């Protein structure tokens, strides 16, 4: 059995996207600002990666208002969770495989 790197999800090639998915896998919902603080990246950077994940239908956006301030929450879709899980499995298998050789 040989697992190649091609099996790794292209959407998670970028580190920030993988980190976003990790957060949304561990939490039901997460808001934009908390995500920004946690990952320590800029608004624009985070927004573009979120957009990319949204386009893949890995996450969905919930917009609401807290008083007058807009509050944007993100949630992983079933498709996203599945993709994240299989990405982790592939990573794990790659490690095992490299240990054997």
């Amino acid at each position, binding site marked *: 059995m040989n697992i190649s790197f091609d099996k790794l999800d292209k959407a998670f090639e970028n580190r920030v996207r993988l*980190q976003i998915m990790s*957060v949304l896998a561990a939490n039901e919902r997460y*808001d934009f600002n908390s995500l920004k*603080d946690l*990952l320590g990246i800029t608004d624009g950077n985070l927004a573009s990666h979120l957009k990319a994940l949204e386009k893949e239908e890995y996450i969905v956006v919930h917009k609401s208002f807290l008083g007058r301030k807009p509050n944007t929450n993100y949630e992983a879709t079933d498709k996203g969770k599945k993709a994240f899980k299989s990405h982790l499995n592939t990573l794990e298998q790659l490690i095992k495989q490299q240990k054997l050789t």
Partner: protein
Amino acid sequence: MEETELQNELASIRSIMERSSKFISLSGLSGILAGVYALVGAGAAYKIIEDAHSKLEEAILRVRAQEPLVTTTPSFNSYVTDYSSLNWKLFAIAVIVLIASITTAILLSIRQAKRKNQPMWGSASRSLVFHTMVPLMAGGCLIAVLVFFKLNHFYHPYYGLVAPASLIFYGLALVSASNFTFGEVKYLGICEIILGLIAACLPGHGLLFWALGFGLLHIIYGARIYFKYDK
């Protein structure tokens, strides 16, 4: 990608999942200090209660002996007032201990959050505070009712339930909070609940159980967290 790189990737995923959902910046030291404050407070409370009791007893003995209370000593009434102000003094001690513990916990957590690179007021700490406050507020309101419920000026039938109720609700708060921080908090909570139930079976020893629950258990838990995570 190299093997170590892959492993780093997995480690970073694990760490970010933990940091995003659990407030891991609680400091063990603040647990130890909270325990010490509670023991000091319990000591002070014990002293105040003993003083008030012995004064009251003395006054009662004198009245029984038909011995007029000498004018140089305070009158019997003032002994009684002294005795009823006791509750407020004990309440003040409890509030001081509580404020000192919370302040210490916040200050040490800020330091720890910086070190662990976790936002102090983020999604994790908000969930932690919310899930602590719900059982704690319910317990606090119930205890207020227990304290103020009285049949007449001298008879408070539910006084003895204050210590068990506070331990039990605090324990429930910890169990509910434990999903958002170290797993050890759950065991501390369960111990507090058990202690509260034992206290309910042994009325009249409220202060002792308070000292055990808020003092001793906090010190043991704090030391464990300190040696496991603070380093």
